[in-house]
């Protein structure tokens, strides 16, 4: 299934200042948690592809949600409907479903991107989902109504209190992780993931986190994107062994 695709862009929408949602005209059989390696330019500056998670997917559609942070994402944001996008994928591991009927999903900032498809997947599987969405400010709670619609319970936290609680999203999620017999999923900044992993470990929940790293090949060949594995003198590759890992495997918690 792994392949090089040239997909037509059917929509390129700003969803907040500095954030874009890109809709492509064909599905690539991706699962929630997987990503694609996007070629932002036909030239060699930037030289490497850019990894972007699958935000949503269907037979006839692939959706990406991304933040414009540097040259690559700026070039991506400059592409217009009608143009094509060269991408590799689907790549990497996906969020596994478990036998638990409940799920706690924790999103931090743009880490929400892959969790949309996860929420859809969990809902389709009939799970009860508590979704905790944290961001710096209200504007960065991207597509909040769409996320809200997919969750059984929906809570928001912002650093500045402009929406939801003025709290760390992990503190907001802690009671749910403590009390629900749920599988825990998280994507966001590293300190957030560590705290979610710590909570899940403490309350005995299985927990899956999606990690980021600088990639080069994206297919497991270059060994550039590794993270250390708990308790072993070994590394695992974010691009093929991840990006979704069992929290206990990658965090010393």
């Amino acid at each position, binding site marked *: 299934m*792994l*392949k*090089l695709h040239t997909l037509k862009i059917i929509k390129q929408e700003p969803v907040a200042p500095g954030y874009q949602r890109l809709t492509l005209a064909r599905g690539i059989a991706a699962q929630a948690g997987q990503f694609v390696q996007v*070629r932002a330019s036909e030239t*060699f*500056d*930037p*030289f*490497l*592809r850019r990894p972007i998670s699958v935000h949503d997917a269907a037979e006839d559609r692939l959706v990406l949600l991304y933040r414009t942070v540097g040259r690559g994402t700026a070039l991506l944001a400059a592409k217009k409907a009608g143009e094509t996008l060269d991408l*590799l994928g689907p790549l990497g591991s996906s969020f596994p479903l478990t036998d638990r009927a409940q799920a706690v999903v924790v999103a931090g900032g743009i880490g929400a991107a892959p969790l949309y498809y996860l929420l859809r997947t969990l809902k389709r599987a009939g799970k009860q989902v508590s979704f905790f969405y944290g961001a710096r400010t209200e504007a960065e709670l991207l597509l909040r109504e769409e996320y809200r619609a997919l969750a059984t319970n929906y809570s928001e936290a912002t650093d500045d209190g402009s929406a939801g609680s003025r709290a760390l999203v992990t503190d907001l999620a802690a009671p749910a992780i403590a009390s629900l017999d749920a599988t825990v999923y998280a994507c966001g900044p590293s300190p957030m993931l560590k705290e979610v992993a710590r909570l899940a470990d403490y309350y005995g929940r299985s927990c899956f986190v999606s990690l980021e*790293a*600088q*990639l*080069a*090949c*994206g*297919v*497991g*060949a*270059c*060994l*550039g*994107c*590794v*993270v*250390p594995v708990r308790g072993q*003198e*070994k*590394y695992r590759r974010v691009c*093929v062994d991840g990006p979704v890992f069992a929290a206990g495997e990658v965090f010393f918690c």
Partner: protein
Amino acid sequence: MTVKIAGLSLANPVMPASGCFGYGEEYAPFFDLSRLGAVVVKGTTAEPCAGNPPPRLAETTGGMLNAIGLQNPGAAAAREKIVALQQWSVPVIVNVSGHSAAQYRAVIEVLDDLSALAAYEINISCPNVKAGGMAFGTDPAVVAALVRELRCATKKPLIIKLSPNVTDVTAIARAAAEGGADALSLINTLLGMAIDIERRRPVLANLTGGLSGPAIKPVALRMVWQVTSAVEIPVIGMGGITNARDAIEFLMAGASAVAIGAANFTNPLVCPETVEGIRSYLAENGFASVREIVGLAKKEWQK
């Protein structure tokens, strides 16, 4: 399209560069590996090696830095992967790394009976491999002695991979040739670094890393030209090749074959596309074989 290097007969002059193509399996979903002239696998050491801590990568303008640190499963585990590559009936060249002559020999001892293994590429140019305080690949005497020793350890072809981080690459090339090398590979990566100004520290956990990609092509091409003027044995040229035009530059500079490294990451089809591009170029320009363009720019230059 066939070329002969170090006694090997390759169906075409294009192969992936070591460390950029794993043991082949990662790129097998993209194209039929038998379309390659050869497969060059990841640097293999006697014992398993965990490699350097992350971050190991940094992007640079027109290229990238890597400090993988020779992560590999070790020679014994590599056997299986090399045998698995036989299904593509493409010559397998094993890149051999070590921290001492004994370690290089140990790799050869473990692998030498594999008929799937067509040749060794001896990596004496990894920035982390030291010998007597100086990097291995930078002292002609050390290089000649190492090659001589390995020459006795195997009957398979020995390709010596040279470092570009030297004042005079021809001196090292001559030493390798005198030591009994069948062919040379060049260039390995240029030693570089990057600083993260937000974190105010070097990007790579290893401080320095190897620079590769189109950024280094002019340096690689110059060294291929110099070395193919200095020694008789064939050279596999590499460093920044991204398409058939680049590959033809290396062939015209004197390389008998080419390897493609970092460009695989940008375009996983770069190797087969380069094979086809060279084929078209030869046909359109009335050349009957790759051999006819090897060193062609040198002949024109000497006129």
